[in-house]
């Protein structure tokens, strides 16, 4: 039963942090190259433009949900299960979500990388 709780927390973490990453990435693409903007208009123009993007706030909220799910997950499951499982699944979920929602070209190179990193994260934790 405790396992089921831990795995549902892991599912929630993966869902929330993937949503957050996709929303933040989408927002920053709308903002445009931050370095260029800073050079021409100054740092406050960057801050103002980022804060004026509604999806940025949504992304931050999703990251907040992911953080609290992690806290709950840690109270139900072991650190050595929850952290590597959620981190490695998030890498794979993000590759899928970036392809579907952000229309990024996730070629063979990036798929291999996502799987290598996901596997590596699991091995680091055992």
């Amino acid at each position, binding site marked *: 039963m405790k396992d089921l709780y831990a795995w549902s927390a892991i599912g929630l973490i993966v869902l929330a942090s993937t949503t957050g990453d996709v929303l*933040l990435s989408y927002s920053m693409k709308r903002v445009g*190259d931050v370095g260029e903007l800073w050079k021409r208009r100054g740092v406050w123009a960057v801050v103002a433009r980022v804060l004026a993007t509604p999806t940025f706030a949504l992304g931050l909220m999703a990251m907040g949900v992911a953080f609290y799910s992690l806290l709950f997950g840690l109270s139900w499951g072991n650190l050595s299960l929850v952290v590597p499982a959620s981190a490695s699944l998030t890498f794979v979920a993000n590759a899928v979500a970036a392809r579907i929602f952000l*229309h990024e*070209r996730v070629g063979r190179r990036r798929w291999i990388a996502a799987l*290598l990193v996901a596997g590596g*994260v*699991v091995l680091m934790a055992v």
Partner: protein
Amino acid sequence: MTFRKYLVLAGITVFSTAGDSLLARGMKDLGGVSLHNFSGLLLAILNPWVAMGILFLLTFFACYMSALSWADLTYVLPATSLAYVLVALIGHFRLHEVISPTRWLGIALISAGVGFVAAGPSVTPAHERRNPQDAPRDIVSVEVKS
């Protein structure tokens, strides 16, 4: 990709590692803080290690957002995973922690993954997208021209 952009990607790795380590160091001073004593969590900010850790994590977030403004999410994310490698290497060379063969294999896999992505293109160009609107835009130049 310019040198400045590689510097931002390195910043993601270094600042998230440093931020996490500083937070962990500070929370050890404070002992067990649970959700039940919420005031303890708020007061944790007064600890200099925790304050520094939060400052570093904010810098990490700024670097992360900057990178996402000019590179694909699937390009930036593997860079964040290098933090795991950095933590392990610091533990090995500074604190003389033993790294098991499995962990060395993990380090190798993550590094290989990052290398795979870094060698490829950093951003999907607009003409290859189903929806060209989603490509990173140089809004400023458009504004200057008009």
